[in-house]
């Protein structure tokens, strides 16, 4: 188990400019978790649909408040629940700014996205990232994720500033 101070090796970022709200992430997550997706699409009042899931915070308040040490961080930085230690008190839900941890009424424990721990152990990628048609989900080492985001913004800036000149000129 990693501690809160260990370096984070993976980050998942959802590029809302690219996301179409198509729900593929929710579908694949639903499929591999037998009907219980941990990334879900929410439709907002302006008609935009966006996926919401655990942010795997670097200073995760859910880990801080968990009274039994069930909320933990794995060696790659993903925040996950150890169901053997969890008592289902949902203090993690109170602490989470995004309302992510969810009570599993059958298992009576808190459940949440673990960035596809099982798949990652086999050398695979989180399913939502692997299957997103729009490449709206960026995942990897934090510095690379930031670079990719800024690269995309650079493209947008150039298009906004220069494309008109090229096509009109």
């Amino acid at each position: 188990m990693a501690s809160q101070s260990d370096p984070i090796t993976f980050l998942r970022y959802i590029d809302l400019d690219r996301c179409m709200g198509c729900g593929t992430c929710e579908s694949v997550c639903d499929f591999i978790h037998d009907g219980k997706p941990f990334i879900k699409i929410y439709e907002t009042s302006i008609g935009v649909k966006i996926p919401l899931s655990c942010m795997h915070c670097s200073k995760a308040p859910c880990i801080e408040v968990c009274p039994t040490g069930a909320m933990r961080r794995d060696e790659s930085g993903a925040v996950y629940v150890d169901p053997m230690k969890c008592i289902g008190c949902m203090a993690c839900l109170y602490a989470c700014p995004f309302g992510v941890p969810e009570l599993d009424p059958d298992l009576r424990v808190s459940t949440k996205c673990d960035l596809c721990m099982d798949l990652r152990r086999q050398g695979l990628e989180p399913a939502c990232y692997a299957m997103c048609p729009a490449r709206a989900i960026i995942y990897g080492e934090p510095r690379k994720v930031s670079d990719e985001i800024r690269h995309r913004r650079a493209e947008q800036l150039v298009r906004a500033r220069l494309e008109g000149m090229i096509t009109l000129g």
Partner: protein
Amino acid sequence: MKFTFMCKEPPSIVPGRGRYKIAIVGGGPAGLSAAGYLACRGYEVHVYDKQPLPGGLMLFAIPEERIPPENILEGIEELRDKFNVEFITKTKVFGDSKPREDEGDKLVERIVSLKDLVDKYDAVLITTGTWRSRRLHCPGEEGPGVMSALEFLYELRIYNKGYIPHKPHIGNRVVVIGGGLSAVDAAMEALNQGAKEVIMAYRRTIKQAPAGVYEIRKLINRGVKWMELVSPTRIIRENNRVKGIELQKMKLGEPDESGRPRPIPIPGSEFILDADTIIEAIGEIATPPFENEYLGVKADRRGRIQVDERFRTGNPKIWAAGDVVTGPSLIGSAVKQGLYAAKSIHLELTSKKLV
């Protein structure tokens, strides 16, 4: 899209144990997701598709600025090269009668009978999607200058890929009828193609538009004109060329079966809008590989194949999933159906093995 997101390699095959063969009809998001699951389980998977490449609407209709084509192509290549999924392209599968003409049939070179597939394979999954557009059925609709959103988007894509020599003709003043995602995509591409004016005409208000307020506002910012509470009554032609469209004003009434307020025509409110191109984006219809009923597989009035909760049809060897079951939906819904249908096929074939 990594359709084989659940495994690294195909499982090794035990010699002497025959592999089950599965045919998937239609290589869109549902078919390809099913192919990925089944390839991970070690099945021999053949995907039939009427286009020169699988990918369905993700490659042949939805604009590239939404879905980067290489993201789909890489997933297809992996299925083909690493998981030995065979793709039989430019091939339309249909019941043994004369095939129905759908949209996107332009590049089809071969027709294969659905019955042959059922005889040849251990299981067949139908994921043929929605390749027919609803039409307005108003006077003046037949002839040049009027097309469906799917037809326009499809022909633009196959022209850009070099499959056809001519671009679909887009005039200077384009009216797009509809308020869904196809309408939004068609309006956006019409603008990209250099139309001077693009008008979206929708019979309800922006609040009810299935594409959502945000997508429509984004288009308005790019120069598209939004016109709401109007419905077309006829298309006006002069020397067979489109000259305009007559629209009737509408008002909102009580909610209809869709839960949205019903648009009610206001008599005598007709007016004419100048236009030289009309794009109809009023919805798509399921296109099963047969008419009405075939080999025990039934489609409803809207072409949707009837399945049970495990995606089984009336034929024990045929499953169906995706938009051909649900009608037009989102990629995520097709992916989900494809995955669960594939799992259902797997469970069926493995239980057979034990008997």
